[in-house]
């Protein structure tokens, strides 16, 4: 057990090291000299050589790549993600200020997805190959195929502009959260519905469900007490693994609803070529993504003892 944990930790560290190296290396993909490009876009005119030289000196860009990387990584490990090229505020505080809005959106979207997906997936499995099943599968297919920025605008059009039920954009109240959460949650719901359906179909055919039925337990009780509880185990892990989906979606959904958050911070920084912010946000999201996946893996083992015994693949 301890050996397995150490192996896992070793592998996790090597992945995180690779992640940090690639994250820091992004800046060097810039065609030409990053300092020149940044200054040219900042001033909308070609900078002089002395301006480029002073920018390079100010931000430590004259050092060899490895020296820059190690210095950045050392600071990052101590919680210091550096300072923006344009704002005096530290990136750590910018990330920490944006994080709550994105987390709020992520949690609300997850709640929306579960509220939609669990009943739909269960109904679909219980009424397999009927019109209910087909309708639910078509809904899931449309949900997974819809561009979230488009859905966002449709919801804005109907709920905000036509009906006046919710604010058009921003943050602060529950009303501000409803449409972004539905926009982001519906895509997730489509994926979770498929998982719930598949998982329920597997469980419904299990012996213990047959046993419960043969003992005369009512069908509804069999479905919700015996089957659903076990069918939800893979769902828990899938919801955890959806973290990447949430972050991807947040980038777009925050732009649609003009919500300040990690996504908005990243997109603005990409356009401004504010690389320290880009590096900081990408590093934080990638680490959160990797750690969540590991936690989900461990949770799966804890929730389903058969995994540890090797009875399930």
């Amino acid at each position: 057990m301890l050996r397995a944990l150490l192996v896992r930790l070793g592998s996790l560290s090597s992945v995180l090291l690779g992640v940090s190296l690639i994250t820091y290396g992004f800046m060097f993909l810039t065609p030409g000299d990053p300092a020149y490009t940044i200054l040219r876009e900042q001033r909308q005119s070609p900078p002089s050589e002395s301006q480029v030289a002073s920018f390079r000196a100010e931000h430590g860009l004259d050092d060899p790549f490895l020296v820059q990387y190690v210095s950045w990584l050392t600071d990052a490990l101590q919680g210091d993600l550096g300072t923006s090229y344009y704002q005096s505020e530290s990136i750590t505080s910018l990330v920490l200020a944006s994080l709550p809005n994105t987390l709020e959106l992520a949690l609300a979207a997850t709640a929306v997805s579960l509220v939609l997906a669990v009943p739909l997936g269960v109904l679909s499995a219980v009424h397999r190959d009927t019109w209910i099943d087909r309708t639910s599968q078509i809904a899931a297919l449309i949900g997974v195929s819809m561009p979230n920025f488009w859905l966002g605008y449709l919801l804005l059009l109907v709920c905000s502009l036509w009906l006046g039920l919710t604010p058009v954009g921003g943050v602060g109240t529950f009303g501000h959260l409803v449409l972004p959460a539905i926009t982001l949650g519906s895509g997730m719901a489509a994926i979770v519905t498929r998982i719930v359906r598949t998982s329920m179909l597997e469980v419904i055919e299990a012996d213990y469900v047959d046993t419960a039925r043969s003992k005369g337990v009512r069908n509804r009780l069999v479905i919700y007490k015996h089957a659903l509880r076990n069918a939800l185990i893979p769902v828990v892990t899938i919801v955890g693994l959806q973290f990447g989906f949430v972050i991807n979606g947040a980038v777009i959904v925050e732009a649609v609803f003009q919500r300040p958050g990690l996504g908005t911070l990243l997109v603005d920084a990409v356009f401004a070529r504010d690389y320290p912010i880009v590096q900081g946000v990408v590093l934080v999201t990638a680490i959160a993504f990797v750690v969540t996946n590991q936690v989900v893996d461990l949770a799966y083992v804890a929730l389903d003892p058969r995994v540890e015994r090797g009875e399930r693949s």
Partner: protein
Amino acid sequence: MSEQNRLEWRRRLDRWRPEIRTNTTIRLGGGVVGLLAIVALVGPLVSPYEPTTQALESRLQGPTLAHPLGTDALGRDVATRLTYGARVSLALAVVATTIRVAIGTTIGLLAATGGRFIDALLMRLVDVQLAFPGLVLALVIAGVLGPSLRNVVIALSVVGWASYARVVRGSVLAIRDRPFVQSSKLYGTPRRRLVRRHLLPHVASPVLVLATLNLGTVALAAAGLSYLGLGAQPPTAEWGTMIAGGRNYLRSAPWLVTAPGVAIMLTVVGFNLLGDGLRDALDPDHIDDRKRRRT
């Protein structure tokens, strides 16, 4: 391709053909994708309008006979721009997915056949790639390289190859020790020939399924990047850019956002149906199961 290689591929295609022909989901998905391809090819040829020519006197017109999907803020015909956009979206999805397949398959084959060290190294690389949320990584790469369609293709190609590498490696490892591969090795078949004759045909079906499903994801991501301003630049007719351009007229001209959105959704639905159908049709267990039921 040698005669034996051709025979091996033909044998597999013969095995798949009846499954593909009778699968309703494939027919449905294929129909949608085929229709979109026809629109992309023929639409621009038959449209009386140019996608970028402005006609300010007829700006923001609702759907009429002359403009079935209305006009945009610069008086351009939305239907014409949609057909040009179909070319961009389909071409982009196909090119980026093909590059993903090429990179992923090569890395997967190298990992499975190149010995323990190479395998461990390449699989760590795969883990690192999968550690980034895909769109975030593509967004940053496209942003750093500079907003353009070409850079979106590069970004989306660099981002999505890891799942192919995993699938290919897994499929090869599953057959690596089978007698037909082992005997071929014992006969001294060169590695390249072994890969071409025995390994590639075996990984073809999972890769094909994944690639088809991926075409939709890539089209969706490309539209998202263009919507954010990192892909096609105005005045190019591209669906994501069209939605971004129409957002300021949401109340007065909702068709500017709805029409390209429906087009993106149909494309992704088509590819997803095709991918789902192919997965059912090409899964060996599924084929055997159906044959057993037929006999």
